[in-house]
């Protein structure tokens, strides 16, 4: 018995860590399990009966797949916009010293240090007062706005860690500034840009608060759909989509890592 307690004491940190991990993953497992439920009534909170109905007919719910497609469109466009604008800002901040640099840094930092609801309400107020109708455009504008800072942070970190001698070497080897940028700088910064873009996509796709304040009646994104459903009755298909997203994300990450490791090992 005392040996048992010694073992517990020695592994206390790891046990606590694993419990924390369980806390993080538990809801995903519940979502997965309940995607196979056949609930009684409108809400999918209590287990009733195993069924694959939702998986065989994921778009069987009115409006859900439209909202999914709208979310994807917004996320793709917001990612492209935020990545382009953010990468430019990141290069300026990482590579140049200029008047207004620290003010710009503060400007980039603020949206990340602001509760979403504050940004959401203020931007919504502006659109209202300017009489700009809420819809796809306003959602896109808002998403690019809050994704931008994250792209800047990711790309800037990458560019700052790049050895400036690599670009000097390119110039020394007869590459013009444009060639240097295309053949050396851009490929080297790519992982940072990709990270920023991925983060933007995830943030935009999953955003609810800012979207709720800046969307119109006809532009219902997927999170908005889930929110509405949570008041009226949640179809099991929502769990199917949630699980599919989880599996796709884990699969992509693991696959990407596996590919990376393989390339390192064989190339």
């Amino acid at each position: 018995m005392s040996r048992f307690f010694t073992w517990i004491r020695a592994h206390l940190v790891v046990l606590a860590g694993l419990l924390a991990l369980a806390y993080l993953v538990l809801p995903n497992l519940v979502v997965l399990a309940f995607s196979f439920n056949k609930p009684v009534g409108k809400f999918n909170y209590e287990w009733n009966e195993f069924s694959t109905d939702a998986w065989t007919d994921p778009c069987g719910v009115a409006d859900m797949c439209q909202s999914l497609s709208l979310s994807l469109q917004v996320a793709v466009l917001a990612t492209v916009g935020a990545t382009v604008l953010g990468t430019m800002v990141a290069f300026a901040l990482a590579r140049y010293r200029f008047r207004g640099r620290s003010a710009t840094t503060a400007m980039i930092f603020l949206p990340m240090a602001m509760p979403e609801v504050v940004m959401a309400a203020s931007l919504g107020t502006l659109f209202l007062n300017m009489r700009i109708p809420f819809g796809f455009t306003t959602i896109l504008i808002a998403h690019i706005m809050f994704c931008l800072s994250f792209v800047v942070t990711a790309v800037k970190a990458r560019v700052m860690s790049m050895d400036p001698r690599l670009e000097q070497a390119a110039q020394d080897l007869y590459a013009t500034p444009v060639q240097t940028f295309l053949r050396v700088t851009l490929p080297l910064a790519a992982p940072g840009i990709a990270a920023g873009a991925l983060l933007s996509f995830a943030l935009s796709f999953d955003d609810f608060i800012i979207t709720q304040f800046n969307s119109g009646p006809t532009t219902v994104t997927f999170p908005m759909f889930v929110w509405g459903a949570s008041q009226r009755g949640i179809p099991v298909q929502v769990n199917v989509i949630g699980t599919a997203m989880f599996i796709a994300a884990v699969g992509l990450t693991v696959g990407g890592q596996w590919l990376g490791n393989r390339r390192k090992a064989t190339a």
Partner: protein
Amino acid sequence: MSTLTEAAPPQAIPPDSGQPAGSAPRTRRKLTPYWLLLPGVAWLVVFFAVPMLYQGSTSLQTGSLEDGFRVTWHLATYWDALVEYKWHFVRSFGYAATATLLCLAIGYPLAYTIAFKASKRWRSVLLILVIAPFFTSFLIRTLAWKTILSDGGPVVGLLNTLHVLDVTSAIGLTSGDRVLATPLAVVCGLTYNFLPFMILPLYTSLERIDPRLHEAAGDLYARPFTTFRKVTFPISLPGVVAGTLLTFIPASGDYINAQLLGSPSEQMVGNGIQKQFLNVLDYPTAAALSFILMALILGMVTVYMRKAGTEELV
């Protein structure tokens, strides 16, 4: 003499020289950084900074949607908002602070395990497991807590058997043998939602610590817990500061957990702003509320960062 180590040549570039740091001076164009900044910064100015200012003016307006709003320097809006929502503010910051402390208590062991106890292979698996939930809509995951904490479910049953609910009821965190629709459920949801924001910065700061520091501390007569208290924790402080801010700020403005997992008596400021903006259409009050929220958070963050002694977070 031959062991002199060569550092990089001095690169003391004076500020405002418009010169690329360490790159060819001939490509210098004073305006280049401004052209690069222009679209992104303009976007933030127009859609972030201007709305903030605009909101300030809105909060001082009176009127209605039909007749239009006019700036009347109606400061009473602030007073009325504070009076009406004072308990919302108390709950917002109370729940957010509790969730932040819980995140730290739960997240630190996990970040520590990933950084020091896991092998290289397991490290990436664990990190993926921390990040992966991000990719499932957080609304769906939050709704899953409704199932987990449902009345008569296994979690509530267990807590009841262990008489935990008696204790939490006594201090007002739960009521009866329910967890859903109580402050405990809201704090649990907030903790869950923002836990990755705590773990990732903690992990980043812990991962940089040379494990030999632990050996050195042990060599210098520090017991494991002393090593943690005197060496590991102080070095990881930047991560703690970043993690607590990344958790506290969004948690205090959140309204989703209170809405989905709480009852009307757990509502937070976010719920108030949302209601005023989307349902009541009382924009001045919504603006005043978010202005007060923003000011309080900025104030707290400033004091906290002063105390914590780190101002470099970006």
